[in-house]
């Protein structure tokens, strides 16, 4: 008997990725450039991935969304799509740290050991997460993402005995939805559909300025 299907979506970077998985098997995979001028391509990619896997939304066991950090708008497009699909059929929404989906370019799995997974956070910074990878490529632990200066990457990596991986690095890599197949279940958490939002990694710039000027946190309401 095949495992019930999971739909995974991640758009932490300007390349959104979608995969339909059954257990640790990737049944179909699609990618889409985010923020096209004339069309939004992630939703068509979701429909194509489901179609290629011959899975209807109602048949999904769950939707797993990349939970950031990353590109604010892209994260929100993926999250909004995930929420709409879940609401349509009462599906549970799960989140996985986007950096736990980091995989080397051209390969399905990370080598065993400790990795420092990195994503561009702009303004000279990167989001960094330490990943522990066991033999066979399963990601068993991911530290909470930290914002560090891009120039400090080698130092931080050395400090933790980790190999850096990310876009434009010697070990080129990026998050991929299909990588969910090799992420330990403990890193995939069920969310509350109504209130969930990704970890953006940064506050809105206007909020940062306001809080600096007022010396206190801005509370909604």
């Amino acid at each position, binding site marked *: 008997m095949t495992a019930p299907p999971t739909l995974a979506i991640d758009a932490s970077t300007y390349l959104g990725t979608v995969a339909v998985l059954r257990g640790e098997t990737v049944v179909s995979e699609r990618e889409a450039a985010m923020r*096209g001028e*004339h*069309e*939004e*391509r*992630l*939703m*068509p990619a*979701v*429909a194509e991935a489901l179609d290629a896997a011959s899975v209807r*939304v*109602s048949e999904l066991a769950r939707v797993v969304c990349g939970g950031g950090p990353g590109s*604010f*708008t892209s994260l*929100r*497009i993926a*999250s*909004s*799509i*995930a*929420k*709409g*699909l879940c*609401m*349509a*059929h009462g599906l549970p929404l799960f989140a996985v740290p986007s950096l736990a989906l980091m995989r080397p370019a051209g390969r399905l799995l990370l080598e065993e050991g400790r990795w420092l997974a990195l994503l561009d956070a702009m303004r000279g910074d990167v989001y960094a997460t330490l990943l522990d990878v066991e033999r066979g490529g399963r990601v068993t632990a991911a530290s909470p993402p930290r914002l560090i200066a891009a120039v400090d990457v080698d130092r931080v990596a050395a400090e933790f005995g980790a190999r850096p991986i990310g876009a434009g690095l010697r070990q080129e890599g990026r998050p991929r939805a299909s990588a969910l197949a090799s992420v330990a279940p403990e890193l995939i958490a069920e969310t509350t*559909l*109504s*209130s*969930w*939002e990704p970890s*953006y990694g940064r506050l*809105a*710039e*206007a*909020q940062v300025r*306001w809080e600096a000027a007022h010396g206190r946190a*801005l509370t*909604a*309401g």
Partner: protein
Amino acid sequence: MTRILAIETSCDETSAAVLAGSGDATALESLVILSQDVHRVFGGVVPEIASRAHLTAIVPVVEQSLREARVSLADVDAVAVTNAPGLVGALLVGVSFAKSLAFGAGKPLVGVHHMEGHLFATAIEHSEAVPPFTALLVSGGHTLLLDVPEWGSYRLLGATRDDAAGEAFDKVAKLLGLPYPGGRHIEALAGTMTGENPLRFSRPMTRRDQQPGDPDYFDVSFSGLKTAVLHAVRERSLPPRPEHGEDPDAAARAAIAAAFQDALVDTLAEKTYRAARLHGRTRVVLGGGVACNRTLVARVAERVRPFGATVYAPSVRLATDNAAMIARAGLFRFERGERAALDLNAYASQPIPGMIAA
């Protein structure tokens, strides 16, 4: 009968509505509007904060709208969503959510232009507010004067050359030390004005010798009026308005607020009158947040009454951004056979579909 579930997230209101009917016979079954108060501290809408708030509000707002309408998603025939114009990041939450909800539920999707929604808003409450009519759409982002011979055909007659009407209210409110958004605060303050107002600002671009065809016959401009207010505040050396307690300069501020509001609404009333008269329309429809201003509604009605025209204005809930109007415009587009594809995108600006040459 068609039932539409509509979603609107173009600015700082997360809204969902359910509307059922056909043609111009429709019934609003529910309308939920969640306003984001957080932007007040910034004196304007912060796009990134608005977009984040939409994402955490969208599911509860849509669920509530279905609950209040006593229907389930299965009872809905189509999903309509605002996809332009507005804050792109904010719009994308509604658009992405609506696309996946419609796809997941196997329902058709319709993209709706926010300003076309405003044209339909009044018809939800007033069955006579249907074409042909002259429309004045006034909000924080737009000031449009349109002739509407029929739904889907919109002749753009005039627009603002600088600030939108609502924007002018907000800026003047700031000059007078009033909170954001400024419209209702200015109207309330102007209402405290007693006796003859010693202050009068000129009505921009309303010379008597203007002729139809002149470029400024229908257009408006409020930046000069705003500057006039600034000078009036400076000439009176008005100190900042106290945050608490009585304002010793309340009378002076009320005179400025009233003079500003008079100039703005008289200008809009004159332009609307010209449009209705030229096209022989006996119905005038107002829309957008500034249509909440009762002085504006009364002044336009007064100006067009001599040739027998009637003015229709929406209630406050339907004048400001809301999904009911998106449902109503979405129904029109749906009945015309229009369907959006899964690659539907969001746009900061886009002409209203069906614009015809003036």
